[in-house]
């Protein structure tokens, strides 16, 4: 029998403990190997999702400014307001919470309680809440009620130039007007912050992986609009429409020498700060830019300018007016007050608004008859000289190019083209008409109509918009002067409630345009009244284009509805905006 040895027992115990310790360590090593090597990616991602946060730094939207006389003032700004929400799951006492909302925000208690009954975790109960209101509400310390900050556009001048400005929708995208056309410039570029953060989300500065790209704020935009002129144009338009018993209309005031739009008004209008409440989306549209229509007799000075520039007639040319011209199966007739049959000059064509005269001018372009040569020559002037049928490129959403019929394709081309010579069978916007008159009256340069005078970057760099010439030699300087004289003659021969001083040159032309019916042909007894003219000293300074839709007063829409409005606006400019006086 082997004797019992104390030494051997001790050694065995040591070995057991040693084995146990090794085993424990082995378990640790295996577990760590599993966690750190095999599940490395999973735990790395989990840790990063907790610690590594990505934030978008919103870019501040650019401010829109306009002229107020010599000053430039903001007319669209940003304001921090709050959206109040509730989490119905966290609200215990719904009546108490609704009372607190009514007390601080106003509104309907039942509506708040209904929102709190919803089966969701997020219900918006109020928007555009001021900081003071938000703080008063949160002071109640009610669980389940919170507020989120949001930047909103605010309009200190109310609805002034609403359609020109447009608005910014809830997603931060500019809609209509300048906001849409210059959305990219105004919006800027959001920045980003990727950083390891503490438990409160505060970025830890020591992390090597932090990425901070600051937001680039949107550019401020300075408009060519003068708010005083705009305000008065809007008021006069509203009064003029009421006088003419019309529901809608537009006014454009353009600087003849560079294409800058000084005022652009539409009625009816809306409050861009409350665009959500507008039921009819047509109100958002800037009709002076987007609404192409048959403009009527305001086209006749353009036809005369083209014929004079082509040298197919002279300023002292005359023709015998039989009060009607037969073209193929159709007949072109004059209005009743055409002065009777007889010999008429080009100035008479404009003064008496002779459709036969405009047709005669077109016939001269074809060598004395209505033919392809004349149609193509007139088409060339309409599209390439006066740029009808093409967008002007003004900084506005939804601009319409208008339409000009083809001179060679289609049926009834001669009568169609006869109609275009007096502003029917083709369409143009009031802005296009103003720009074409500006080109005729400033000596023959077609400047792109524009609303933006300059943009200013966040670092203060100013970028001025240089007047862009879209067409040169639209007409010769001589023709320009001849047309100016004829338009002044028209104003002299027409009655205005308040006569114009001889110190200024004022000219223009009425238009009473038939309205195309959706079912074909033209509407019976409904017309649009138009007027395009100018005020200035030796040369035209401001071009004024006026549209009165479907006036309900008796008489010709052009002379009874649009002409008085033109007169009011011309006087407003002379009285308030330092129109240069004549020197000769």
């Amino acid at each position: 029998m082997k004797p019992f040895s104390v030494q051997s027992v001790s050694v065995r115990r040591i070995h057991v403990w040693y084995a146990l310790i090794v085993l424990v360590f082995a378990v640790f090593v295996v577990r760590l190997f599993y966690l750190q090597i095999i599940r490395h990616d999973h735990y790395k991602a989990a840790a990063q999702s907790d610690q590594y946060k990505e934030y978008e730094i919103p870019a501040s939207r650019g401010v829109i400014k306009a002229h107020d006389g010599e000053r430039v003032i903001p007319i669209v700004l940003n304001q921090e307001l709050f959206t109040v929400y509730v989490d119905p799951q966290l609200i215990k006492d719904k009546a108490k919470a609704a009372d607190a909302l009514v007390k601080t925000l106003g509104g309907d208690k039942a509506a708040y309680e209904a929102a709190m009954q919803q089966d969701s975790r997020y219900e918006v109960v109020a928007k555009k809440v001021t900081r003071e209101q938000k703080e008063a509400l949160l002071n109640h310390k009610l669980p389940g009620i919170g507020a989120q900050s949001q930047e909103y556009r605010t309009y200190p001048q109310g609805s002034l130039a609403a359609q020109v400005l447009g608005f910014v929708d809830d997603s931060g995208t500019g809609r209509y007007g300048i906001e849409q056309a210059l959305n990219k410039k105004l919006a800027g570029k959001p920045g980003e912050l990727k950083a390891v953060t503490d438990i409160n989300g505060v970025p830890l500065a020591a992390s090597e992986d932090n990425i901070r790209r600051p937001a680039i704020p949107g550019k401020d935009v300075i408009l060519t609009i003068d708010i005083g002129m705009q305000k008065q144009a809007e008021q006069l338009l509203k009064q003029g429409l009421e006088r003419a018993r019309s529901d809608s209309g537009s006014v454009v005031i353009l600087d003849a020498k560079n294409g800058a739009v000084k005022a652009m008004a539409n009625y009816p209008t809306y409050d861009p700060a409350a665009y959500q409440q507008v039921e009819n989306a047509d109100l958002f549209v800037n009709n002076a830019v987007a609404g192409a229509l048959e403009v009527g007799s305001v086209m006749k000075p353009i036809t005369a300018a083209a014929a004079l520039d082509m040298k197919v007639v002279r300023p002292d040319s005359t023709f015998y007016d039989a009060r009607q011209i037969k073209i193929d199966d159709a007949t072109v007739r004059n209005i009743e007050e055409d002065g009777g049959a007889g010999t008429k000059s080009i100035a008479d064509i404009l003064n008496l608004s002779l459709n036969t005269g405009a047709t005669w001018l077109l016939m001269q372009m074809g060598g004395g008859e209505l033919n392809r040569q004349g149609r193509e020559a007139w088409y060339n002037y309409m599209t390439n000289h006066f740029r009808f049928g093409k967008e002007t490129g003004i900084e506005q959403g939804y601009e319409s190019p208008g339409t000009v019929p083809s001179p060679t394709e289609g049926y009834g081309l001669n009568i169609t083209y006869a109609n275009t010579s007096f502003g029917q069978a083709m369409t143009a916007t009031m802005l296009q008409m103003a720009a074409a008159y500006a080109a005729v009256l400033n000596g023959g340069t077609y400047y792109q109509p524009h609303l933006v005078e300059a943009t200013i970057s966040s670092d203060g760099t100013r970028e001025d918009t240089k007047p862009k010439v879209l067409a040169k030699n639209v007409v010769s300087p001589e023709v320009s002067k001849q047309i100016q004289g004829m338009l002044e003659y028209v104003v002299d021969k027409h009655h205005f409630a308040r006569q114009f001083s001889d110190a200024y040159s004022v000219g223009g032309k009425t238009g009473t345009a038939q309205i195309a019916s959706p079912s074909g042909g033209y509407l019976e007894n409904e017309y649009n009244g138009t007027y395009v003219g100018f005020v200035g000293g030796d040369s035209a300074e401001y071009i004024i284009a006026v549209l009165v839709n479907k006036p309900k007063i008796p008489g010709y829409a052009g002379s009874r509805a649009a002409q008085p409005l033109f007169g009011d606006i011309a006087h407003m400019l002379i009285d308030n905006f330092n129109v240069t006086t004549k020197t000769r």
Partner: protein
Amino acid sequence: MTYSSSMAMSRQRYAVRNQNSVSFRSTDRRLGPITNTVALIILACLLGLLYLTQVTKTNAFGYSIDRLEQQQTQLKIEHDNLEVASARLQSLDRVQNSAPAQNLVSVAPSAVVQN
């Protein structure tokens, strides 16, 4: 005899033997591998501590930066709100409806100065 007493006896034997030996003291003092290791560990700990101090300090600056950024944002909001209030006070409608404007009399121009 226990295991410990047996070990003690064997050490005693060597101690007696060493009494007759000549001892040499080396003048070239060198740190042993253990000392080196310990020193390196202490140095590494010190460097780690220094690194942690710096990281903590830097992160503390992060909080200051965050606080200043919040202040900057608040000031910008305040500035924007004041700008809005100023623009509203100068709006055409407000000026038009103000008491001094209500007392103004409209005058039509009676003459034109010709240059």
